[in-house]
């Protein structure tokens, strides 16, 4: 990092089905919550960056930059960033670059998605924009299908069993019972998950993160400091379609972004005590843990087994509940992950936390590392 960038404020809406709130309402709610908790005032914001994927397709609204700018009395400069489901973290990365270059000193980063105005079919069709229109769409596949292919191959290669995979969502739901912002706050047993309806064999309904509305906002600054320092912000890309990849069970963009982030922060995987990772589907959580360096290929399930059994000393993964239990308003997720990483670092008084976000089937990936400084 070229300068000392701090996370000085954050806020979010609860994620869920907000029939009465439109995109602007969601952005306003998250923004106000962030400003309320920050040492700066609204007038200190000299740039707004909005992360969003689907507003053009599902809400007839491009130009979210202008919309967000009008939330603040002085209409600061604003821009919009898109990287499919990674839009939130890519907005953070853009903010980091603006701060490190000195173009801005205090940046408000908002991630927002309004998905429930459209039908489930329309939303599924729109989400396919994160895949390859020419190579993937004609087959009729959807994202559950794409990750179904990944899961089928993973199970074939490593012998992962159905009841083991169910531990992932079970852990996420149990951990979300402590999170007031989660969409779903009750425990769900692995047996229930194993028996939920098939969506894309072998993935079942409760392996899949839901469709949600929501917004989350962060304020990053070089002018104000806090106990949460951003020490790494790295992005990476991979082929858009699985048909252009050599392997299904490990994602190059995961490995590249995290390797660069560890380098930038000058740390190693074992230094990370808190992790928020992109579990759009349960199988992704396992692959992520392996790619990010926390487990050997085929062995990530042991981390979830330990979390389920409550073994102390296990890495804190998705203590917020992850995408599965918190909900996944696409672009809000990346921002919310950074927020939850910060909260957990403070709560457990740990030093390093990682927020990991990706878009599509990890065709783009962004990794952020927060350092919690002792007060």
């Amino acid at each position, binding site marked *: 990092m070229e300068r000392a960038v701090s996370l000085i404020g954050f806020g979010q809406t609860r994620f869920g089905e907000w029939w009465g709130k439109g995109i602007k309402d969601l952005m306003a709610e998250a923004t106000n919550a962030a400003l309320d908790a920050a040492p700066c005032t609204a007038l200190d914001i000299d740039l707004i960056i909005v992360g969003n994927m689907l507003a053009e397709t599902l809400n007839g609204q491009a130009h979210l930059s202008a919309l967000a700018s009008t939330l603040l009395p002085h209409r600061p400069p604003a821009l919009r960033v898109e990287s499919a489901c990674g839009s939130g973290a890519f907005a953070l990365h853009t903010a980091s670059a603006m701060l490190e270059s000195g173009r801005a000193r205090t940046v408000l980063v908002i991630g927002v998605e309004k998905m429930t105005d459209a039908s489930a079919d329309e939303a599924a*069709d729109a989400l396919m924009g994160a895949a390859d229109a020419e190579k993937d769409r004609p087959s*009729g596949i*959807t994202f*559950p*299908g794409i990750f*179904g292919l990944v899961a089928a191959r993973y199970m074939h290669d490593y012998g992962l069993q159905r009841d083991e995979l169910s531990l992932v969502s079970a852990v996420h739901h149990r951990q979300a019972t402590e999170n007031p912002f989660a969409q779903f706050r009750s425990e769900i047993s692995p047996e229930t998950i194993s028996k939920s309806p098939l969506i894309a064999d072998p993935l079942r309904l409760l392996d899949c993160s839901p469709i949600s509305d929501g917004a989350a906002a962060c304020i990053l600054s070089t002018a104000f400091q806090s106990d949460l320092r951003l020490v790494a912000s790295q992005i990476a890309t991979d082929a858009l379609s*699985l048909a252009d990849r*050599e392997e299904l069970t490990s994602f190059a963009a995961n*490995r590249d972004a995290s390797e660069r982030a560890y380098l930038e922060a000058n740390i190693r995987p074992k230094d990370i005590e808190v992790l928020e990772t992109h579990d759009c589907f349960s199988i992704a959580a396992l692959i992520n843990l392996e790619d990010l360096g926390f487990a050997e290929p085929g062995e990530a399930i042991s981390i979830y087994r330990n979390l389920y059994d409550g073994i102390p000393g296990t890495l804190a993964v998705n203590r917020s509940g992850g995408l599965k239990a918190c909900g996944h308003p696409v672009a809000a997720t990346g921002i919310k992950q950074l927020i939850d990483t910060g909260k957990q670092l403070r709560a457990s008084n740990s030093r390093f936390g990682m927020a990991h976000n990706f878009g599509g089937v990890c065709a783009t990936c962004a990794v952020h590392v927060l350092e919690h400084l002792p007060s």
Partner: protein
Amino acid sequence: MKITPAIAARAAARRPRSLQEGTIISLTTLTHPLAAFGNRPRTIALIRLEDGSKSLASLTAPGVIGQTVRPRMRLSHITEDQLRMYDVSYEPLALQRVPEHAPFPGYILALTGPSGVGKSTVSRLLLHACAEYVQNVPILTTRARKPGDEGEYRYVSKEKFSQWLEDGEIVAVTKIPSQDEARWYGYRARDIEAIWKKGKVPLVITETHLLQGLANHYSRRSILSFGLLPPGRSKRTMLSCLLRRLRQRGRETEEQIAARLDVAEQDLQFFQNRKDLFDHLMVNDDLNKVIDFLKKKVPGLSA
């Protein structure tokens, strides 16, 4: 997404490329496809086509990973404008294909890996430990002997190699272009069969093309195929490990080492692309572990 006539025309122009047989890499069944694709579950697979490219396409019937498929023209869906979108769907072929080969000839133990990974060291140790059961198959080559060659090659003239090739005596062959002329490498059937006659398992230290040739000739199930990988999680780490080992070996110039690394990169890719050609992938960081593993996995060796 709305499929317009222009999009449909481009899709139709691309379609002939998909008319190849292939193998299922993975498959899934969507219980509820998008509305445009109908009310019934839709099985979709990622398929490796004969030309090495991959395609995401529907299957005409359920299948399994590794199954061969053939292309079929099918109506994929009808757009709101009543345009009929046709696409190639793949039909899984009967799982048991009647083999055209002779009865099962016996096992060949194959060790494949990039330059510098330690194949020769592993094979030397193995041959020493299991001399009564395993014997090395010499690689025929038309290149001249080089300092550092350790007896794994048998040197023949280009004319003799061509003759044997023509007579069908060579069961796997590859050619490495060099500056002046191509160097040929291969295995001779009678070298392998002689070892079988002695009741031993032929051991080949080999590379990707020769391995493929052996699998084609004797059938995949005859090959006990072990891939040897350098330690490292990412390709970069693995390649730097190989670089270190090649330098340590001290047999080649920096230029030659650089060339070997390029090939090594392709080899590493091969392990990922062609998992079907390998029964086991081993990381060579502890020689004893590797030998123990080999002895366990080869029938008759652990005695």
